[in-house]
């Protein structure tokens, strides 16, 4: 089969899956919406749909797409199939920031989001500053600096957890780290959405350069890429994207790792359609995981449980099939 047609088929299938998932997601939830919307007697139902159900579905689509794309970018830039936002400390920085927010600001949703966003950015700024200070410009330096900052943020998080009241704050911190789309609502979505779209647009505009970064650095330079500048810019966009998403949802594991790999195993290359497919698979994964997280039990479950439960078997299947 012609490769282009095959890739198009994958993209189309992903679109259709997402469409089905979106419809299902819009009509699944604790508030009895389906009958109320059709019957049209409950004015509350419309509000619930617009203020909670729709934003949550949008966040699942956008968040999954963002995490999948950011993961792809990290893996390309670092030439490392295991690279994820944690490699330069953004996740652990965001966690420490969220814990700080929960302990010292207020358990309210907005201060925690703001603190976690700042925490993620601080960690990355620290990583990049350390890289600047060190002689040499290889990716080795940035990874090493990232590991140092990651450990530092983890230590800080541990200290914060230790001082937390186990009944109240510690529980909140643990729940935050497990991730959930429960906090998403119409009032909280716009900032995150705008930031995500901005970063995604940037990454898509720079898609050629991202692909070139994945080849040898010298080769990239010969092909006319200002390697360091572009790398810095692309990393910044991917990091901002990740920080914007996880500051609202808490840590969501595996999507950034699994979605791009799955896409690559399907298309068998590193091209723009693969980047896009990675994003779509991320959307589908988060959409399905969130659907399960809010409907399996009467309460809310952490979304990360399901991103791993759903994503890992699929990745393993593709891996084994390839061999």
């Amino acid at each position, binding site marked *: 089969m012609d490769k282009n047609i095959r890739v198009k088929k994958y993209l189309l299938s992903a679109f259709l899956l997402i469409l089905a998932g979106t419809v299902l997601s819009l009509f699944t939830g604790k*508030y009895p919406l389906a009958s109320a919307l059709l019957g049209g007697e409950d004015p509350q139902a419309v509000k619930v749909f617009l203020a*909670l159900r729709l934003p949550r579905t949008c966040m699942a689509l956008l968040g999954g797409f963002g995490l999948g794309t950011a993961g792809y970018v990290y893996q390309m830039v670092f030439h490392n199939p295991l690279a994820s936002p944690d490699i330069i400390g953004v996740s652990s920085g965001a966690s420490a920031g969220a814990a700080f927010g929960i302990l010292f600001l207020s*358990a309210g949703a907005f201060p925690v989001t703001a603190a976690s966003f700042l925490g993620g950015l601080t960690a990355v700024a620290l990583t990049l500053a350390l890289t600047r200070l060190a002689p040499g410009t290889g990716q080795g330096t940035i990874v090493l600096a990232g590991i140092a900052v990651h450990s530092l943020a983890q230590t800080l998080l541990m200290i914060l957890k230790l001082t937390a009241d186990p*009944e109240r704050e510690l*529980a909140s911190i643990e729940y935050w780290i497990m991730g959930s789309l429960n906090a998403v609502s119409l*009032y909280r979505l716009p900032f995150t959405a705008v930031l995500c779209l901005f970063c995604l647009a940037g990454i898509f505009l720079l898609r050629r350069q991202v692909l070139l970064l994945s080849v040898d650095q010298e080769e990239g330079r010969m092909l006319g890429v200002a390697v360091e500048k572009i790398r810095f810019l692309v990393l910044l966009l991917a990091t901002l994207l990740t920080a914007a998403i996880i500051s609202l949802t808490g840590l969501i594991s595996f999507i950034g790792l699994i979605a791009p790999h799955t896409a690559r195993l399907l298309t068998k290359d590193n091209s723009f359609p693969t980047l896009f497919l990675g994003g779509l698979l991320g959307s589908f994964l988060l959409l399905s995981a969130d659907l399960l997280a809010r409907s399996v039990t*009467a309460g*809310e479950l952490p979304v990360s449980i399901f991103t791993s439960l759903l994503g890992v078997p699929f990745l393993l299947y593709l891996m084994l099939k390839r061999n």
Partner: protein
Amino acid sequence: MKKFISTFMILILALSVTACAAGNSAGTAQSPEQAADTGLSSSAAMQVTYPVTLNDQAGRQVVIEKEPETLVSGYYISTSLLLALNCQDRMTGIEAKAKNRPVYRLSAPSIIDLPSVGSAKEFDLEGCAALNPDLVILPVRLKDVFPTLEELGITVLAVNPENQQLLEEAALLIGTATNTLPAADSLFQSAKDSLAQLEEALKDTKKPAVYLSGNSSFLSTAGSNMYQSNLITQAGGINAAAELTDNYWSEISYEQLLAWNPDYIIAASDASYTVDSILNDPNLAQCKAVKNGNVYQLPNGIESWDSPVPGSFLGSLWLASILHPDEYPDIQWKEAAAAFYETFYRFTPDLENLYDRS
């Protein structure tokens, strides 16, 4: 004979409590009711004779050789029980963060500065051993440290006051161990009387739906299997989250809360958020409780009445006065609260300032 009656009575008082004075066998034809009747009417019969063997709430047999003169409590509920049993002067060690408990400050300020033996999270074995107490009372969840303490020659009594029944059993255990059975026996009487009175007052009223939000977030709540659910039902309300059957606080969504649409939202005593944050949350603007301004926080100025402490019945009485002000006016629970704390904790509570702002 006295010895014998005391032995048998303790056996009756709680299923998990057995007391065997040395050289006595408890097998007789006397019915449990008779024993309880004669026992409870005479406080002299409530004298404990040592050595006494107890089955503690971890299922261990604990022999207490003589009446303990020095006590360490590693859990706030057992500390609250010790205060109610007037044992504060025998305490030589206390759990961590004692200064955060207003009832200690009000009832026995001296215990706040006792050496800390840590918390259930981080127990300080050496610190506890250094105090060399006659008896250490610890929660069951610290069971890993029991063998070590015993090797050091320290007697450990494990309690597990996770609900009202277990709390009453724990009170009798501690009462027997510390020779304060009369107080342990009467401790829950006023609670039972007040709750019976309340039930009578509310018998024909309509029951509103009440959503109890947990300490960590107002989107966490207690299902019907949880101790805290009783607080609502005793106060003449229906737990809006009754369909949840988890044994711990469950996380729920805004949607779920709106679907339940409770008449009242009651925040836990130690909530890390404010009542205003619920009232001002735009996602909840359509919720009945928020629309009508029926959002309150359980008082925390004395104790957290949503945890199984002896005074927890006051949480139900307070809530009843919110849900049913006509049938159960404010003054009634305040009288009950004043009487309770004056009798068992030896202070007069300030019931105009119900919240600890420190």
